């Protein structure tokens, strides 16, 4: 009996689907849900799934797996999703080294990849691909904006530090690309380092008038707390990752007043963003982070493309993605020629709203900023 019923349902569904001209789209999300970097992946996933839930589109199916922040695990998951789950679109990776392990082979197998965060320079320039879209940014962007902001704020002598890994090197290079002043000290710390006493002592002795630091996740928490305890009062500047919503609570009041650069903030004034912040808080009981906003935009971009084109028609679907015809929480949203966003980057300041630490926009660092690699991309 049950068999007949499902058959009838399937046939009915087939007719409905035929009428709507839409093939179902299956999305494979590979992101970090356990271990030290889990809060970033959880936020990206929650933002993505919020948009999916709100759209309530029966043609969209999402499979989620945890990469544990390990490149080998991410590669296995991608293989499994492509070969067994037969997904059409991959997304979700937070860390650039994992993205480099997964994205090139996925797009070569003609799958779409929509990045919710990681966007290494290698995939923006010569290695760009028609199936690869970054919804977040290109890795260097926020650091470039920090350099631009530091110059325009009148700082002339910066001490800069970042972890010793590819994204850390991109970060300092990005900062220096837009900073006009002198660099009084440049330090690479160990990835995952937790004690910054030695670096802070050097900052104190350096005579710099500003400090730029890129230390995402727990590293940033440790640095900020120790910096506040050290009594050094040279102003801090960082990209949004160092001052993200997910870590502000753990840093505490030490974060107050720190300037950071971001392409999204919860106080960007548009209806989509307002609704996003409210519904995210209602659904999950916490404020959304920048990673949640990227996840939300990524899902809405995908949904907008599904409305316009059939995923089996790769060319049309790609054009629909490129058009970026959706309401972004960042206001306007435009892709550049290498399918990375061209966007405004803001300066935010950490403030306190009641008991909750959060960020507030205090200015624009760079307007309609495109990345430095777009010209190397032949597409």
């Amino acid at each position, binding site marked *: 009996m049950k068999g007949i019923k499902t058959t009838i349902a399937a046939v009915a569904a087939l007719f409905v689907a035929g009428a709507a001209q839409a093939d179902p789209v299956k999305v494979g999300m590979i992101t970090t849900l356990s271990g030290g970097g889990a809060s970033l992946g959880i936020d990206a996933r929650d933002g993505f799934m919020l948009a999916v839930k709100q759209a309530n589109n029966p043609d969209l199916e999402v499979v989620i797996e945890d990469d544990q922040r390990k490149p080998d695990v991410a590669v296995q998951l991608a293989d499994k999703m492509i070969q067994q789950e037969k997904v059409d679109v991959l997304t979700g990776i937070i860390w650039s080294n994992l993205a480099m392990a997964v994205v090139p082979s996925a797009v070569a197998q003609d799958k779409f990849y929509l990045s919710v965060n990681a966007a290494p320079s290698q995939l923006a320039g010569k290695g760009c691909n028609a199936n690869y879209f970054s919804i977040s940014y290109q890795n260097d962007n926020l650091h470039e904006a920090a350099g631009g902001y530091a110059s325009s704020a009148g700082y002339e002598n910066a001490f800069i530090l970042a972890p010793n890994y590819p994204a850390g090197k991109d970060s300092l290079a990005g900062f220096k690309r837009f900073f006009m002043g002198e660099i009084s000290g440049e330090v690479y710390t160990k990835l995952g380092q937790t004690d910054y006493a030695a670096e802070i002592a*050097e900052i104190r002795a350096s005579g710099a008038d500003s400090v730029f630091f890129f230390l995402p996740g727990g590293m940033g928490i440790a640095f900020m707390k120790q910096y506040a305890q050290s009594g050094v009062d040279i102003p801090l500047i960082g990209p949004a990752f160092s001052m993200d919503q997910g870590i502000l609570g753990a840093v505490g009041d030490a974060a107050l007043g720190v300037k950071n650069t971001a392409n999204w903030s919860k106080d960007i004034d548009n209806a989509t963003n307002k609704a996003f912040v409210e519904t995210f808080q209602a659904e999950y009981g916490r404020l959304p982070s920048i990673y949640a906003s990227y996840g939300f935009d990524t899902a809405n971009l995908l949904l907008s493309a599904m409305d316009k084109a059939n995923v089996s028609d790769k060319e049309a679907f790609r054009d629909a993605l490129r058009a970026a015809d959706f309401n972004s929480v960042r206001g306007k949203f435009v892709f550049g020629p290498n399918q990375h966003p061209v966007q405004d980057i803001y300066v935010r300041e950490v403030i306190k709203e009641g008991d909750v630490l959060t960020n507030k926009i205090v200015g624009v660092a760079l307007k309609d900023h495109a990345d430095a690699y777009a010209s190397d991309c032949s597409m």
Partner: protein
Amino acid sequence: MFTLFLEQLLNGLQSGVMLFLMASGLTLVFGVMGLINLAHGSLYMVGAFACAAVAAWTGSFWLGLVASLMAAAIAGALVEILIIRRLYNRDHLDQVLATFALILIFSEGTRWIFGSFPLFLSVPEFLTGTVMMPGEFQYPLFRLAIIIAGFVVAVGLFLLIGKTRLGIRIRAGEADRGMIAALGVDIDRLYTIVFALGAALAGLAGAFVGTTQSVQVGMGEPVLILAFVVIVIGGIGSIKGALIGSLLVGFTDTMGRFLLPHAFATFLDPASATAIGSALASMLIYIVMALVLFLRPSGLFGTEA
């Protein structure tokens, strides 16, 4: 430059003292019971989370500190009674597998209770700020307090092992466990006490370090690796070795990070000097460990195998 050097020496001392709290428990457990305990870092995490949670709940860092000691000691005792006890007669591979499983259980359990987002834990009010040190430089008061607290614990531990009845039993257990059992010492209870003591020390380190770092799931593993380096350098089972090894690792790491980039900058351009200097600095403690093992295969204070 000279005051900066003094300040970095103090930083090295502070990081060494914290390492000692971790390494002493690890080396005690290995020395007395012959057990490799990978879950030692998880007990450190338990201490940090207990301190953060109780401090947030009661508003008192001191109650948090007490809670960290208790929580880690209780967790340690339970783990010993329920699981570790079955491993003493197994070979080291089984112990590594079982205690690695414990890491995963502790991590996911902590995530289940506290969530994935790091917790807030701050320095108590009267320990904030800096003090002027001889040599005219500011040093954070809390780091100074950690150094003193660490030395107090170290002295207490030496007295406990050297002067008390429990200490005599622990040393006897290290030397010949069959014989002290035959002499009527309750060996099971002794092992539980030693394990809980080591766990409490790790929990205390977690609470101290949690005030200057991020209290998050997985915070114990990087420290665990360093603690293993320390006990290998110091000689497995030796508390004195753990102390000397911790200070050596603390100084080597801090001074390496500080001096190597400057040293390379004398004959290289600044960008490549920092790149090479910091890369070499992160390897330095392992180079020291290799050297020690080459010259003294059983560690600085280890008994010849």
